[in-house]
């Protein structure tokens, strides 16, 4: 587990080093600020991202605040059989949505590490968040 965590962290550092403003350009930035199950906003934001990607748009995701918990590994169904969003997250790669930004401050505030997450992410600073706001044509907040 810690070995796997280390590998992921190293991989992430490499990605972060490669990260330039050019990489971040895109048509749509979807900001996700809610975790799974508590509200439908996470799912509805992801749905918009998938549809845009299906129409050939370049889409990035930015997880902020408690939205970072959307990526925590090992999520399940709700107790009444609510689907949750893990299945949707697993589809992102297939739709070429590969830029997953997470707010660094929120990760610290929640005590989460990249190795707690189910997908590879780029932790971003306020300056990088601000850059993402300007390098995408459209920004939608969920």
């Amino acid at each position: 587990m810690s070995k796997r965590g280390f590998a992921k962290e190293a991989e992430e550092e490499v990605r972060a080093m490669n990260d330039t403003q050019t990489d971040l350009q895109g048509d749509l930035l979807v900001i996700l600020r809610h975790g799974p199950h508590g509200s439908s906003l996470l799912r509805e934001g992801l749905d918009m991202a998938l549809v845009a990607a299906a129409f050939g748009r370049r889409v990035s995701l930015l997880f902020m605040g408690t939205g970072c918990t959307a990526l925590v590994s090992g999520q399940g169904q709700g107790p009444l059989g609510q689907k949750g969003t893990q299945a949707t997250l697993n589809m992102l790669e297939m739709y070429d949505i590969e830029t997953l930004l997470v707010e660094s401050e929120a990760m610290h505030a929640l005590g989460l590490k990249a190795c707690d997450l189910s997908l590879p992410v780029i932790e971003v600073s306020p300056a990088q968040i601000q850059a993402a706001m300007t390098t995408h044509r459209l920004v939608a907040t969920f």
Partner: protein
Amino acid sequence: MNLHTLNRSPADSRVYQQTLQAMGHDDQLLLIEDGVQGALPQLVRYFEDVEGRVYALKEDLEARGLLGLCADNVHVVDVDGFIELTEQADKTITWY
């Protein structure tokens, strides 16, 4: 003795401050829905004034993948445990 339920994360909302003010000396706090985030080791410190009286709903932790990340000093209860808490308490007060 009253039971208080809280469905907001202290990382998101300040309503936990109202909850804490309203809790008497032997009242209990149950974290449900997004409120279970408060059971994370980094956030449970917001509830240190009521330590030992904090519960979190197992099903909501599980659905979010947070059961394994939960702090040791939080009591994990399932929905039957939730009902037992409401049986024992005179009233259940909901914070959201």
